[in-house]
C-alpha cells in the first residue's frame, strides 16, 4: 500500500534516510511514506533509532543522507521553525513561565497573528480538547492528562501537516495511559491531521495506529497494519516483539505435503509449522506460536482431534483477568511455553506441577530461518 501511494496523498515520505553517530548507525537507509490523515506508529525497543528518526522529521537534527518530504515538499535545509510539522515532546515541554493560554498562543504569536485573533483561536482549540476556560491557569495547576491535551492543542492550533508524538504517554500512570490512548485516537479522528507516533509499547501502537512500522537497529523490520504485524509477522524480530509469543528454537526437518515442516528442538521435541522463508533440512529455525493459539485440556481427548497432542507440566499460573496465562514446560524436553487461559475461567484453578495436555494448529506456527544464519 505505502509503496504505490501517489506523492500527493502522502504527508510524509522518507527516502533512504541515514543518520550516523560517532560509533553507530542510528537510522540506516530508511524509506517509507505515511498516507494523509492516517495514524502511523513507529514501534521499536529503546535505542532502535526511532527518536532519532522523529527528530530528523521535526528538523531538530539533519540526516546524513537521504531526503524527507513533508506534504510533498523536500525538507532538506529547512529549519524546524519553518517546517509544517509540530511535535509533542516526551516530557511535553510545556512552558512553565507561561499560562495555558499563552502556551497555546505561542506558535500563533510567532506567526505575527494579532492578539485578539490568537485568543479566539486558542480558546476554541482548548474547548475542542475539553479544556474550555483553562486558558488563565498555570501549567503546574493541571493534571497529567490535562497537560497532555494542552501539549497537543499547542501543536494542533498551528494546523500542521504532520503532528509528531514522542512517547507522550510514557510519563502517565497506567489507568490514565489507557484513557489517553482512547482520547488520542478520538482526537486524531476528529482533527484528521496525520499523526506520527513513536513508542516502545506495542499495545499503544496496535490500539492507536492505522499502520505501524516496527523498527530495529535503524531499519524497519516490517511496515503494515496492526493485524498484519500480529498475525502475519515477516521477521522473527516482529514475531517476538509485537504481542506475547512463544519462541521455539530448533532444526528444520522434512517438509510435509500440507506445506508444513518438522522442527526438532535440541532436546528432541518435535513440532510442525509453516516455513516463512527458505528452509532446507538441517537449517536453524526460530518457530513462533502465540499463547492464545494453543489449547489446553486436562484430558488429551478433549483437545481438537486433528492437532498433534503434547503433554506439559504447569510451572506457574499468571492470573490477570482476561489476559491470564499459564507457564508450563513440555513434559519430556522441558521446553518452556506460555499458554493463554480460555476466557471462560476454565483452568484458572491449575496448580504448579499439575500435568496437562496441550495442542496447537501447525498452520499457526511461523518458522523463520534462524537470525544470524541468514545471509
Amino acid at each position, binding site marked *: 500500500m505505502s509503496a504505490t501511494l501517489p506523492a500527493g496523498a502522502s504527508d510524509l515520505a522518507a527516502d533512504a534516510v541515514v543518520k550516523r553517530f560517532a560509533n553507530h548507525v542510528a537510522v540506516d537507509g530508511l524509506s517509507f511514506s505515511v498516507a494523509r490523515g492516517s495514524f502511523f506508529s513507529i514501534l521499536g525497543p529503546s535505542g532502535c533509532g526511532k527518536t532519532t528518526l522523529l527528530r530528523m522529521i*521535526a528538523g531538530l537534527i539533519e540526516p546524513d543522507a537521504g531526503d524527507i518530504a513533508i506534504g510533498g515538499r523536500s525538507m532538506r535545509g529547512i*529549519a*524546524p*521553525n519553518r517546517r509544517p*510539522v509540530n*511535535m509533542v*515532546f516526551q516530557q511535553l*515541554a510545556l512552558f512553565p513561565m507561561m499560562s495555558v493560554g499563552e502556551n497555546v498562543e505561542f506558535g500563533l504569536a510567532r506567526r505575527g497573528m494579532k492578539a485578539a485573533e490568537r485568543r479566539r483561536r486558542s480558546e476554541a482549540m482548548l474547548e475542542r480538547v475539553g479544556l474550555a476556560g483553562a486558558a488563565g491557569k498555570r501549567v503546574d495547576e493541571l493534571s497529567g492528562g490535562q497537560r497532555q491535551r494542552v501539549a497537543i492543542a499547542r501543536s494542533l492550533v498551528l494546523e500542521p501537516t504532520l503532528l509528531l508524538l514522542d512517547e507522550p504517554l510514557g510519563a502517565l500512570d497506567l489507568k490514565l495511559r489507557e484513557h489517553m490512548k482512547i482520547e488520542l485516537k478520538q482526537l486524531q479522528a476528529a482533527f484528521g491531521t496525520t499523526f506520527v507516533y513513536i513508542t516502545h509499547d506495542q499495545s499503544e501502537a496496535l490500539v492507536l495506529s492505522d499502520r505501524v512500522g516496527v523498527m530495529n537497529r535503524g531499519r524497519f523490520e516490517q511496515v503494515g497494519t496492526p493485524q498484519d504485524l500480529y498475525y502475519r509477522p515477516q521477521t522473527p524480530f516482529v514475531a517476538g516483539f509485537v504481542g506475547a509469543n512463544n519462541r521455539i528454537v530448533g532444526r528444520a526437518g522434512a517438509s510435509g505435503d500440507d506445506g508444513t515442516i518438522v522442527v526438532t528442538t535440541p532436546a528432541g521435541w518435535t513440532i510442525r509449522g509453516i516455513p516463512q522463508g527458505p528452509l532446507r533440512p538441517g537449517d536453524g529455525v526460530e518457530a513462533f506460536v502465540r499463547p492464545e493459539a494453543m489449547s489446553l485440556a486436562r484430558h488429551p481427548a478433549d483437545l481438537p482431534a486433528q492437532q498433534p497432542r503434547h503433554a506439559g507440566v504447569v510451572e506457574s499460573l499468571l492470573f490477570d483477568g482476561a489476559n491470564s496465562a499459564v507457564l508450563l514446560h513440555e513434559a519430556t524436553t522441558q521446553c518452556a511455553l506460555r499458554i493463554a487461559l480460555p476466557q471462560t475461567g476454565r483452568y484458572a484453578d491449575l496448580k504448579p506441577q499439575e500435568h496437562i495436555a496441550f495442542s496447537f494448529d501447525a498452520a499457526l506456527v511461523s518458522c523463520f530461518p534462524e537470525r544470524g544464519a541468514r545471509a
Partner: protein
Amino acid sequence: MLDGAARARWQNRLLFALLLAPAVVWLGGLIVLPHVELAILSFRERVGPRHYVPSLAQYATFFTEPLYWHVFVRTAWLSIVATLLTLLVAFPIAWIIAKLLRGRAGTTLFMLCLIPFWVSETVRTLGWMILLRESGVLPALLVRLGITPVPVELLYHDATLLVGLVYTSMLFMLIPLVSSLESLDDSLIEAAYDLGANGVDVLRRIVIPHAAPGITAGCIIVFMLTLGNYLTPTLLGGKNSQWFTEQIYTQFITRFNWEEGAAFGFLLLGLSTAIVLVGLRLTGQSFGAVMRDSR
C-alpha cells in the same frame, strides 16, 4: 522528672540553639552591633574636645559638598554599568558551560573561570597593573605593533576600572547563571523552535524568563561587591576614578573623622539597598523568590 517525649523535645531545642549559635554570634557581634555603634556615631557632631552633641551635620555635609555627591553618583552609576557588563560577558560563557559543553569540557571551562580566584584580589589587580601601566606589557605591544608612537598610560581611566571590576565579579555572576541555565530543560528550547520561534524569541520568551532568578541573584551579588569594592578602584582607578569607598576610608583613616565616615557608610548602605529594590521592582522579581530559586 521529665517524661521521654518532653525530654526529647528539650534536647531537640538545645541542639537547634547550639547549631544556630555561631550564626547568631556572627550576625549579632560582627554585623548588628558595629552598625548600631556606627549609626550612633553618624548622628552626632564634635563641638569641642571630647564633647559631642546629637546632630544631622554629617549628612548635611554630604549634601552640601559637591565632591562627595559626585563621587557617590559616579560610584552608583559605574557599579550599575559594571554589573550589566558582567552580565553581558558572563551570559554567553554560562550558556556555553551549561548547554553546549556537557560533562568534562564544561567542568574544565568552569575551572578555568575559577582558577584566577585562587590568588588574592590584590595579586590579580597588580597583574592588571603590570599589563596596563605606561611601562607595562600592553602599551609596549601597542608601540611594537605601530598603533601608538609612544607608550600610553592605560591605567587610571574609567574604562580600566570597569575592566577590573568586571574581571573581579565574573565568577559571582557565572555561578548563579550556570545553575539556572543548567536547570532549563532543552526540550523547552526545542519545543519553542518547533512552534516557529527564532533564536531571539527563544532567548526572550524562554531562556531569560527561566533564568531570571539566576540573573537577578547574580546582578545583586555583583552590584553589592562592586559598590563596596575598595581595592580595584584604588589601584586601577587611582585619583582620576574616585570611588565612594575611598571617601569612607579617607574619613576614617586620613581625616580621623569617624562621624563623617559612619554617615558615608550608611549612605552607601542606603544607596545599595535602594538600587537593588528598584532593580527588583523594574524586573518584576521578588527578593524571596530570587533567593529561593537561585540556590
